[in-house]
């Protein structure tokens, strides 16, 4: 099981928060590094990471992606590969280059899992493998 916390990001009038979990991402030498991700069910990919972190980890480049932002301009971004520890297993995932901070963990990563979020300040976030439950 993977667990994390809900961080308060709102204020007294409109309290809200971010569910975050820490996942270990392997660099090219195989050494793993803890990275905190925001669980984002509106993102249908696996993970995003910043360009700086992708370079530091030495991840291999696979594709070029394109996205249209609110200003109607297309932006290009790199798609990389990485190995992460996920519910006790090592899995290969796609990593989209993005300046999102914290980086995002999306639905492709969560596929096959049950996620529970205690949506309150300091609430627990848990991700369990559906095959194990």
């Amino acid at each position: 099981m993977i667990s994390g916390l809900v961080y308060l990001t709102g204020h007294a009038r409109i309290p809200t928060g971010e569910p975050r979990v820490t996942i270990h991402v392997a660099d090219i030498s195989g050494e793993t590094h803890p990275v905190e991700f925001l669980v984002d069910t509106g993102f249908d990919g696996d993970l995003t990471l910043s360009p700086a972190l992708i370079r530091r980890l030495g991840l291999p480049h696979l594709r070029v992606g394109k996205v249209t932002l609110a200003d109607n301009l297309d932006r290009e971004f790199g798609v990389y590969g990485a190995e992460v520890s996920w519910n006790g297993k090592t899995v290969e995932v796609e990593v989209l280059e993005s300046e999102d901070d914290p980086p995002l963990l999306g639905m492709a990563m969560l596929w096959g899992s049950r996620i529970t979020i205690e949506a309150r300040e300091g609430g627990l976030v848990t991700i369990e493998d559906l095959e194990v439950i």
Partner: protein
Amino acid sequence: MAAERTEADILAAGQRKYRSMVVWELTDDDKGKMVVIDVDSGDYEVDTVEAKARDRLFSRRPDACTWTAEFNGRPEFRGGWRMTYPNGYTIEGGRPSRDEIREALAEARRRTND
């Protein structure tokens, strides 16, 4: 009660209190100081010397179960609403398969080792 808990339980409880409550009450003047927290009540003391903070907390709460952190400032808020960046994205050649990612990683490792 405290003796029955594992270190992992105390760590998790301490981090919860620290991240969800204590960091929002500290100020820039507290940066670099040690924070000793009673993981049950959330009561805490701050001092440049951990032992002094600990002594003050235990004088008030002799049964405290404590966890200590160094305060490095609050996490920063982002203003406005989040626009999830990858929504509506396309990847030339389609999304890579798990097999392709595995092969690319193996190839990159071979190159690094050469």
